[in-house]
């Protein structure tokens, strides 16, 4: 560990908080229909889009109508993406769009990929550099990076409206919320972010791959492409699917330690800001601060453990005789699978940032993290997106937990639980409980199926012996059910002997199971969150009395952390013991 490593972590948190607060207020204004500084620029395009889309933004939708629009729109996106990916080498696609003449991936891998991008997961069995045409990356994947992020955000906004709604049924208008998200939030930040990344060395072109002749007379082929425009929304929308196979470890995606900071900031900025949006929209900013504190405590805990574990080095390195401590001119630590420019701190922090959110981008090989360092992403995923979480998904996930915590707190003091003046009754608690349970259920069920069957074990990598093989499997389904997308990348669902998909085939079991898990664990909790919003929106508000349990003080923060950890730990601890914990504690080589 180094001083600069700790300083990076501290400054990152400070800058993040300083940026998230104003963005949160800004987003509250956008969704509240207030005037913001971008209104003069986007008011006209906004009206134009409503006209083209035949949307009446004034039409108010109840939760069922809102959910219906959301599901149908997602389905339309799914179908279009499937067609785009399966026809990337068709006769009508111009050469410039696919300069390397890559064929399409087979149906099973495409099913997985499409489900993955529409659900904001960006789990990737394919490798971008050897599978996707430039057009597929832009027209297909980039678009869903925007739209799946938008869909997540609007659900959170609808839930807030349900919580603060004074009467009636309306949760707002899905189309209006989606259009505003794209125009006022995701669009402008993406344009600025993409240009910032290019100014630091990320690439953005349509050249064919380069052929270089190195100093020692060897030829080197170098992948190219429109990277920066996709990179920025991959992070900002907590999508995580890299242009290249090695994601943000690739120098063309993440060229310097400075861009590494920028990229981590892009990942966390919207999930963090939405917490403040919530505080502002409820009319009590302390509600937002309490949730922010809850998330930040768990986040920092994860970062500290990951950094210490990775700085220690791995059992395999020690067995080989390496000393992994800091020496002059080297930060030491477990540098296997990590880039020199990021070092151990920049890698551990990135890892936590992208696994607490549903981003799943990686700037280092998670599979090569030490047992305990690798247990951190597991623990983060076990928290089911409550530690910041994906854009929108994080906020509605933690709000479901808040509901649960208020209920448990109410039981403990023996009073009818109340939340922001609204009485919580059996219906809301049932809906929230089911919404919370879907993700872990999908993860554990799929893992059990995959470890117990030959078809499932076929995906485990050659090197994944003993607990590592189990870790790979568990991580794969945990990541897909949380719509995260990061991977212990040895786990495979796609066999590709040659670049460009000639002779390639998918592993149907892993592809289809994973695809279904992603869809189920994305839209299931979403519908329950909207149903909770629908149940809350019409409730009468009673003023808080002396005996009302507050949800904006330290006691509640502690209670909420307790509930999140308890649910996560009780659900996943037995499974975690079999994989990463065994490796971390024994130091045994397999």
């Amino acid at each position: 560990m180094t001083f600069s490593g700790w300083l990076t972590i501290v400054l990152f948190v400070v800058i993040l908080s300083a940026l998230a607060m104003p963005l949160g207020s800004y987003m509250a204004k956008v969704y509240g229909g207030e005037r913001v500084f971008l209104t003069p620029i986007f008011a006209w395009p906004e009206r134009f889009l409503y006209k083209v889309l035949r949307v009446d933004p004034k039409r108010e939708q109840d939760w069922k109508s809102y959910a219906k629009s959301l599901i149908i729109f997602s389905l339309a996106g799914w179908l279009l993406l499937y067609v785009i990916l399966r026809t990337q080498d068709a006769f009508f696609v111009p050469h410039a769009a696919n300069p390397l003449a890559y064929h399409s991936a087979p149906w099973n891998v495409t099913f997985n990929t499409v489900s993955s991008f529409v659900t904001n997961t960006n789990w990737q069995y394919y490798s971008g550099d050897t599978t996707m045409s430039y057009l597929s990356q832009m027209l297909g994947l980039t678009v869903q990076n925007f739209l799946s992020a938008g869909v997540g955000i609007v659900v959170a906004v609808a839930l807030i409206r349900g919580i603060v709604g004074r009467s009636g049924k309306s949760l707002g208008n899905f189309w209006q919320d989606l259009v505003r998200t794209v125009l006022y939030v995701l669009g402008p930040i993406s344009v600025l972010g993409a240009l910032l990344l290019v100014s630091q060395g990320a690439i953005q072109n349509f050249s064919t791959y380069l052929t270089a002749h190195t100093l020692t007379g060897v030829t080197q082929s170098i992948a190219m492409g429109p990277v920066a425009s996709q990179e920025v929304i991959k992070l900002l929308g907590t999508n995580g699917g890299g242009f290249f196979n090695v994601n943000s470890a690739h120098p063309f995606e993440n060229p310097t330690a400075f861009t590494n900071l920028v990229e981590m900031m892009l990942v966390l900025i919207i999930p963090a800001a939405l917490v403040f949006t919530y505080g502002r929209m409820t009319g009590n900013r302390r509600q937002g601060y309490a949730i922010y504190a809850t998330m930040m405590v768990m986040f920092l805990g994860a970062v500290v453990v990951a950094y210490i574990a990775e700085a220690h080095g791995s059992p395999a390195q020690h067995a080989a005789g390496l000393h992994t401590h800091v020496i002059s001119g080297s930060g030491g630590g477990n540098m296997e699978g990590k880039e020199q420019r990021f070092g151990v701190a920049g890698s551990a922090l990135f890892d936590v940032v992208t696994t607490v959110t549903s981003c799943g981008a990686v700037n280092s090989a998670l599979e090569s993290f030490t047992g305990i360092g690798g247990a951190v992403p597991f623990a983060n995923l076990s928290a089911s997106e409550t530690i910041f979480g994906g854009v929108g998904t994080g906020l509605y996930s933690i709000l479901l937990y808040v509901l649960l915590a208020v209920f448990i707190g109410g039981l403990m003091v023996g009073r009818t639980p109340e939340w922001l003046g609204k009485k919580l009754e059996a219906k809301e608690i049932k809906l929230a409980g089911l919404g919370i349970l879907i993700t872990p259920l999908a993860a554990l069920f799929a893992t059990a199926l995959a470890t117990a069957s030959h078809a499932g074990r076929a995906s485990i990598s050659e090197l994944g012996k003993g607990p590592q093989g189990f870790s790979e499997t568990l991580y794969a389904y945990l990541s897909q059910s949380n719509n995260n997308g990061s991977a212990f990348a040895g786990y495979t669902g796609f066999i590709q002997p040659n670049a460009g998909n000639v002779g390639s085939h998918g592993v149907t079991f892993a592809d289809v199971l994973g695809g279904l898990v992603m869809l189920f664990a994305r839209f299931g909790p979403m519908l329950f969150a909207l149903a909770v919003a629908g149940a809350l929106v019409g409730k009468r508000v009673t003023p808080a009395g002396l005996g009302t349990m507050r949800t904006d003080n330290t006691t509640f923060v502690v209670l909420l952390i307790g509930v999140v950890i308890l649910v996560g730990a009780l659900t996943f601890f037995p499974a975690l013991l079999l994989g990463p914990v065994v490796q971390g504690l024994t130091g045994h080589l397999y």
Partner: protein
Amino acid sequence: MRRDIVTSVIGIVVLTVLLGLVYPLVITGVSQVAFPGNANGQKVYVNGKLVGSKIIGQSFKTVVLEKNGKPKEEEKEVVTEADPKYFQSRPSATEGGAYNAAASTFSNRGPNDKATEEADAENIKEYLELNKPYDPGLATAKIPVDAVSTSGSNLDPEISPANARIQAHRIAAKRQLSVSVVDGLVSKYTDARGLGFSGEPGVNVLELNLALDRLTGGTA
């Protein structure tokens, strides 16, 4: 229902054009005008010949030839050996030979795998054989971790300053320079931490080797 379907179909098409064509093309256009070097991958030319990208690592090994002049192969892979007069990059395990920047990949070596220990041990052996004759004090325990472990992208353009300073002894001997001259070059091509505090300092291997060639002439 029908209304939702109509809006969804129009919506997905319109937004696909806006976000999937207009947005990336605008970014490409602006980038190509404002930052053409970066946007095209910071290509490095020597005498008009493309030798690589400044920020993509490359191998400084040469192909071992059989007596008949053909490349030597073992287990279907071309055998290479380090060119001792160049600084060596970190080990790379991309498919189709090290530093294949058309197919980036993680090595996925687990922390508790025997295979990882074996790979590390082999890299250590190679590193010692290459450098110990010129730096007699070198021992396994003194090798910086980055020098013998693969990077995340397997395309890392940098090595740690400690790694470079060990190799500087060999470079100085091979190029008949004083160690202090080589160390000076190493310092010159060491990138500072991001914003002064973030990440680790790293030495850009390609730039350093090009500077050496300029100093002592050619790649002969």
